[in-house]
């Protein structure tokens, strides 16, 4: 009797679990690989990385690729919108109102541009005979703080888009040779412009939001292309929009590759007796420095791992190199102080003359 009861109990439990699993819907946080407290920037970054990996064009052997990609799009759509995320957190996927769903294509193209994404091959390898509109290059200024931590820039792209219009227009106009007969045995070759007839188009301005990622460790002059977001071509394809990174100079840190250089001025007393200090890094964390020995002017300290993340592997960091210079007292000393210093330091006169420019 007890086992029968137990069996019924476990079946009920299983049924209940299945029902809740079905009704709970998908775990969007898990799909994106972010924590429940992830910031909007974390979510955008996760989406962008996974979208490149999971795009069906890139996973043609995987029968589940379309579903995985669709899940990713749905997860981003909900978690990137404050209101929808609140509803999802409270009520799960089914708690979401049947509002307007943006197509995954829209979401994907706001990160990468139109016409999907050309994996591997260059866009130039496409049919060269299709005329293309101009490319647009925007110099995007980024701060060193953004290079360290990463960031997203939202832009609104307003561009002319070809729309159908009534009537026909001349297109693909090209010169062709025509032979006309002037008389018996006399011919003339002339050049004529020959055009095709195409449906009429007009240019209408449209707007959309694009998301540009400033990836951690990004280098000066690196470009982020958005396919098809350039200038339109009435007989062909639009050009691309490219964001060219321009890293701005920083008041405290100088970048060399993945390393950061900075300078600290200390007092003569600190140089002689030692000191302790903090350097505030690009993301606000403190780099603690302790010296208990004498610090010479020009002395350098290497702090491994305190540089910038490497663009290709953000787990690797460069170093922070700190160069110290010493500020000597500005005021002149009286005879008593001078004697005090002579007695204290007990350093005889040196006065060595040498050629400092040739390494002697």
């Amino acid at each position, binding site marked *: 009797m007890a086992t029968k009861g137990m069996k019924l109990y476990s079946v009920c439990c299983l049924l209940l679990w299945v029902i809740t699993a079905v009704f709970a819907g998908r775990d969007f946080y898990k799909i994106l690989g972010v924590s429940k407290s992830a910031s909007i920037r974390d979510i955008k970054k996760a989406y962008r990385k996974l979208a490149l990996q999971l795009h069906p064009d890139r996973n043609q052997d995987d029968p589940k690729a379309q579903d995985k990609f669709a899940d990713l799009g749905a997860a981003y759509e909900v978690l990137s919108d404050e209101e929808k995320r609140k509803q999802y957190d409270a009520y799960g996927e089914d708690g979401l109102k049947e509002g307007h769903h943006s197509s995954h294509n829209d979401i994907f193209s706001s990160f990468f541009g139109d016409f999907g994404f050309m994996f591997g091959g260059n866009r130039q390898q496409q049919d060269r005979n299709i005329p293309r509109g101009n490319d*647009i290059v925007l110099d995007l200024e980024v*701060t060193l703080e953004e290079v360290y*931590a990463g960031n*997203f820039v939202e832009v609104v792209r307003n561009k002319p888009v070809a729309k159908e219009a009534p009537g026909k227009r001349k297109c693909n106009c090209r010169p062709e040779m025509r032979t006309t007969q002037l008389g018996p045995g006399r011919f003339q070759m002339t050049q004529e412009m020959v055009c095709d007839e195409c449906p009429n188009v007009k240019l209408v301005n449209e707007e959309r939001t694009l998301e540009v990622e400033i990836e951690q460790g990004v280098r000066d002059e690196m470009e982020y292309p958005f396919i098809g977001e350039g200038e339109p071509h009435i007989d062909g394809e639009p050009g691309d929009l490219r964001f060219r990174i321009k890293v701005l100079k920083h008041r405290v840190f100088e970048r060399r590759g993945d390393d950061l250089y900075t300078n600290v001025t200390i007092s003569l007393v600190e140089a002689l007796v030692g000191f302790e200090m903090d350097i505030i890094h690009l993301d606000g964390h403190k780099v603690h420095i302790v010296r208990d020995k004498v610090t010479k002017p020009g002395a350098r300290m290497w702090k491994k791992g305190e540089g910038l993340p490497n663009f290709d592997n953000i787990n690797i960091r460069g170093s922070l190199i700190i160069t110290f210079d010493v500020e000597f007292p500005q005021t002149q000393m009286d005879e008593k102080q001078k004697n005090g210093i002579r007695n204290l330091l007990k350093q005889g006169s040196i006065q060595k003359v040498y050629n400092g420019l040739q390494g002697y």
Partner: protein
Amino acid sequence: MKMESSYAVLLKLLVFFVLWSHFEGRETEYKDVTCGSLVKLMNTRHSVRLHSHDVKYGSGSGQQSVTGVENADDGNSYWQIRGKANHPCQRGTAIKCGQPIRFTHMKTGRNLHTHHFSSPLSNNQEVSAFGENGEGDDLDVWTVQCDGVHWERNDAVRFKHVGTNVFLSVTGEQYGPPIRGQWEVHGMTSPNQHNWWQVMEGVFIQPSQDPLHQSAHHTEL
């Protein structure tokens, strides 16, 4: 039960207020023209877009010419809005009315510029594109003239030159070959119907969140 419901109401009001104010904030940002944006500028009286190209004036200063073009899909009509030299304007910040700015021609890297030379067709003041890689001189600076606080995308505004005090204008003169069909752009001393401009197509940069803590930059506005 009673306390719970009033607390819930209060919470809902708070959430609503937070969302509303956040939403409001976002709306104003999308309306403004911001630093770093790449735009096309259209003269509202004559419907031509500010344009430049690697063609020099045959008279006046002999510098790179600036014209107006009728078509909307020319890649040579893009200008990037930047701050004055040594007074960088933080990317994404809305530009205030009266603020000094520079316009850098995207394709050639030269700045919108004017000086005491005569324009070839109308004898107004010649407007050229000057400099290399976005750096020219003090005569590259213009102020945005508009009502209100910020330069909004829907506004028609004027551009007044700092240095010679002329207004960027188009009055209707058109060139012959090699730039047939393009219009003359010049500087005029008085504000009138010919010097209204509006941003059209472009890439408008929105303000970003500060990554983690205050940037060490000065922001001069």
